């Protein structure tokens, strides 16, 4: 039953799929940006965790894990999104007094190549 219905309007289906694909291609380049938080000797660990919990809505364990990564590795990627989204987050972080920057997620090598933020400053 499902099969026969699916086979019916074959040509129409494929045209629709084509349209959807091209929309995806238009929005895709905006996606891979990272919000990076940098370590500094002033901000309290408790405060950084509080900001991650209250602003991003992260659970306490997740907020603490990211905070420890900032503290120990010097930096941590705490959010992903479109350029506009992570820029908005960065301004909010600056409002809280955290040191935040945005960077392209991968490729390029333009941003120092520490795309995943793991094991670089260990």
């Amino acid at each position, binding site marked *: 039953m499902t099969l026969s219905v699916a086979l019916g309007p074959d040509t129409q289906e494929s045209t629709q799929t084509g349209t959807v694909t091209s929309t995806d291609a238009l929005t895709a380049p905006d996606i891979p940006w990272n919000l990076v938080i940098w370590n500094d000797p*002033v901000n309290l660990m408790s405060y950084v965790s509080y900001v991650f919990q209250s602003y991003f809505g992260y659970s306490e364990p997740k907020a603490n894990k990211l905070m420890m990564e900032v503290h120990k590795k010097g930096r941590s990627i705490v959010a992903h999104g479109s350029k506009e989204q992570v820029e908005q987050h960065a301004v909010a972080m600056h409002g809280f007094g955290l040191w935040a920057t945005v960077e392209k997620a991968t490729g390029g090598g333009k941003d120092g190549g520490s795309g995943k933020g793991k094991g670089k400053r260990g």
Partner: protein
Amino acid sequence: MAKAFKYGLKGITGYLEPAERELLRSLIDDVISMLEPAESASEDPLTALIGLDMNVQEPSDRALRRLLPNVTRTDDAAALEFRQLTERSLRENKIGALRAAALGLDTNDVVLSPADARHWSQALNDVRLVLAERLDIRDDADAEHVHTMQDWSQAEDVESYLALVYNFTTWLQESLVQAMLQSMEPRA
């Protein structure tokens, strides 16, 4: 002596002596005057309204640069462009939190709503960032060195006085944030 902030039935409460409130008020006023934009008389009201500021440059003062950091480390032109679009409203946001915190400094007993507490924590953080730049705190070792200054009878010069003030604001912010974290925990 001030008492640490606590979370209880009345919300987040603390206690500050008049001299401590006076100290905090002057620290907050200092940061506000750093953040207030210099020019305002001869500018386009429309650009001011939407928060655009094409004259803005990266601040030369290190403390101000820490309060208003570049949004990218790798592209100065992009960082400046972003600054032109956002720095004015970031300054206003910070000044708003600092002013709100200063308003709560009128009585010894401090009772904070959740919004007050957020403003206080932001204000104390900005005050500490500025003090830390004046004290040249560059890494954790510097921070620990400053932290050893705890005795007010040792305050003999500007630097030791600043260190004591920094440690007081650090202690106050830590107790406030602990109370705030406690207030966020789901209560069974």
